[in-house]
């Protein structure tokens, strides 16, 4: 990744009649970055991607690619290529001709054949040039789509939900492969996804979108630890959100009274504003200690009852009813040596460290 901006969006807006599909989008993407646009369906992330690709024109604002204003530049003249959600493999062409599609008439045949072979090797489909489009599996189609776009040597590769059509195992494998490919090529990837895990495992940075607005742009770790509001907090991973009272602040630390968990010192989240005494905090399910006996070394402990238990294999999820909290608290415990096993109705203790608590400020959305 370099410091050079390859894509700059300035106040980009897309309006359909009275409906704002995207508005006020300001975004700088670095050369060689893997960037994900993450959000629920209908949040406008695909619209943003398609405005970069040139399939849709913004109703306001500017799209710059490599410093060039893209206004009026049709999709076929932009230095971007796209991997479509459906993969859009041409059914009347075999694998080799699909991959060669964009080069036909632009390079001599010998060079095309060589580049097709290289591109297919790159996506581990070497030698499958003559395979018909209808004889491909879902994963192979995805690879062909990738090779067909990458052979064009785009400045930016756009990926519209590239993995959503694959089954879970293949999806996880492709996540790593695509990440490796992106890093070895050094091309900027912009991926649209609604899958937070996909976004987190693959991206250098993630932009979270809700209702046509870009809510937060950060690295996966920052998004996870310092979300800018409740919406982002609960979209990225699971989150217990609890009301709390602000008691006082010293420098970077806040002293709060959290429902059920009592008085606790937490770190201030620079991404949120705290303008009144009433605020919210977030606790990740895996950040809570659960034990049969009252745990020591925890500044805050609370007793509760198991209302639900779900076994996930690598970890176990519990719902714990606690006096003073409206909703049960979610707790996730690694299935460490298979020693944790609480049943519904068991009385348990929860332990909490101040460092595990996320300050969500006073927003009340």
């Amino acid at each position, binding site marked *: 990744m370099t410091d050079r901006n390859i894509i700059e969006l300035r106040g980009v807006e897309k309006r359909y009649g009275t409906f704002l599909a995207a508005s006020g989008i300001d975004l700088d993407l670095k050369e060689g970055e893997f960037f994900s646009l993450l959000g629920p369906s209908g949040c406008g992330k695909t619209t943003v991607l398609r405005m970069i*690709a040139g*399939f849709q024109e913004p109703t306001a604002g500017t799209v710059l690619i490599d410093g060039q204003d893209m206004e009026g530049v*049709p*999709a*076929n*003249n932009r230095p*971007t*290529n*796209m991997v*479509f*959600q*459906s993969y*859009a493999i*041409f*059914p*009347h*062409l075999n694998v080799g*001709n699909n991959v*060669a*599609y*964009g080069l*036909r008439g*632009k390079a001599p045949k010998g060079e095309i054949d060589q580049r097709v072979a290289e591109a297919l090797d790159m996506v581990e489909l070497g030698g499958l040039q003559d395979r018909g489009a209808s004889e491909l599996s879902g994963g192979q189609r995805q690879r062909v789509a990738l090779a*067909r*776009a990458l052979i*064009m040597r785009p400045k930016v590769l756009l990926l519209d939900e590239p993995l959503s059509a694959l089954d879970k195992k293949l999806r996880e494998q492709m996540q790593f492969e695509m990440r490796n490919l992106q890093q070895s090529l050094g091309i900027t990837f912009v991926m649209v996804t609604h899958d937070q895990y996909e976004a987190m495992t693959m991206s250098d940075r993630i932009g979270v979108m809700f209702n046509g607005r870009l809510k937060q742009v950060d690295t996966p770790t920052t998004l996870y630890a310092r979300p800018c509001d409740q919406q982002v907090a609960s979209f990225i991973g699971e989150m217990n959100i609890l009301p709390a009272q602000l008691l006082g602040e010293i420098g970077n630390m806040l002293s709060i009274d959290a429902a059920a968990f009592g008085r606790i010192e937490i770190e201030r989240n620079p991404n949120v504003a705290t303008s009144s005494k009433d605020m919210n905090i977030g606790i990740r399910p895996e950040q809570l200690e659960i034990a049969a006996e009252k745990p020591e070394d925890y500044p805050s402990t609370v007793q509760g009852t198991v209302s639900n238990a779900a076994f996930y294999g690598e970890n176990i999820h519990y719902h714990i009813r606690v006096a003073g909290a409206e909703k049960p608290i979610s707790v996730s415990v690694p299935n460490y040596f298979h020693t944790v096993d609480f049943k519904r109705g068991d009385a348990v203790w929860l332990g909490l460290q101040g460092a595990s608590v996320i300050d969500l400020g006073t927003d009340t959305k």
Partner: protein
Amino acid sequence: MIFRSEASRGYTLSAPATAYVGFLVAAPLLILIAYSFWTQTYVTLDKTPTLKNYSDALADPLVRHLMLRSIWIAGAVTVVTVALAYPIAYFIAMKARKKTIWLLLITIPFWSSYLLRVFAWKLILGFNGVMNSALMMLGLIDEPLDFLLYNEFAVVLTLAHAWAPFAILPIYVSLQKIDPSLLEAATDLGNSPLQRFMRVTLPLTIPGIIAACLIIFIPTVGDYVTPALVGGSDGKMIANLIQVQFGAANNWPLGATLSLIAMLSVGFVAIVFVITATQLGRRIR
């Protein structure tokens, strides 16, 4: 139990269609073949098998001439109709908002009888017809044009109009099936709209074009109403000759022979066409 087996259920379901085809297509065809080997002796039939009808028919320059002209006219009708139908189908499939209404509008000519439509063309193209009157009123011509009616042109025009919906519908269906993201992918890979049409849309609609061509070509070769009404002597086709054999000439065996020769010619042309069109489609990359 036997009624529950997959196969017997299939036979049961297809029985009416099989019976229909058997009695109304296969049986008459067999009778036709039988006739073609017999000889007409005034009012009776000589049922001694002979190939004389075939040798007579193939040796007759009139038969050859009419057969070639029929294929030529049907080919022209096919080309004209498909060329006119493609843009309409494209518009409905790709651009139109209310597709159902457009498709309904296209079928409107069928709400009136075919004969009426042919007579309407006679009124339009005739010596004192709509076209000539209008052109004369506008002062574009001094006397009526006489090349509008009673020739090949009139036959092609009338048939192209009559068959247009049969070309529009299969092409529309094949256009409708194209995944829009394929077109976006072509654009994304650098194609201009025209390149995209030639490299994606057209090859993907070849099955629809082939279907449209066959649907039009095969029946028009054997059409006899249109050439009889608007074709004049220049526009006569093979079916007019066949009709004469079964009617005025009262030579059913020769009529049957001519029918079979026409069928085989049409079949041959159709097969060559399908193979060529498919191969051409495969060449597009």
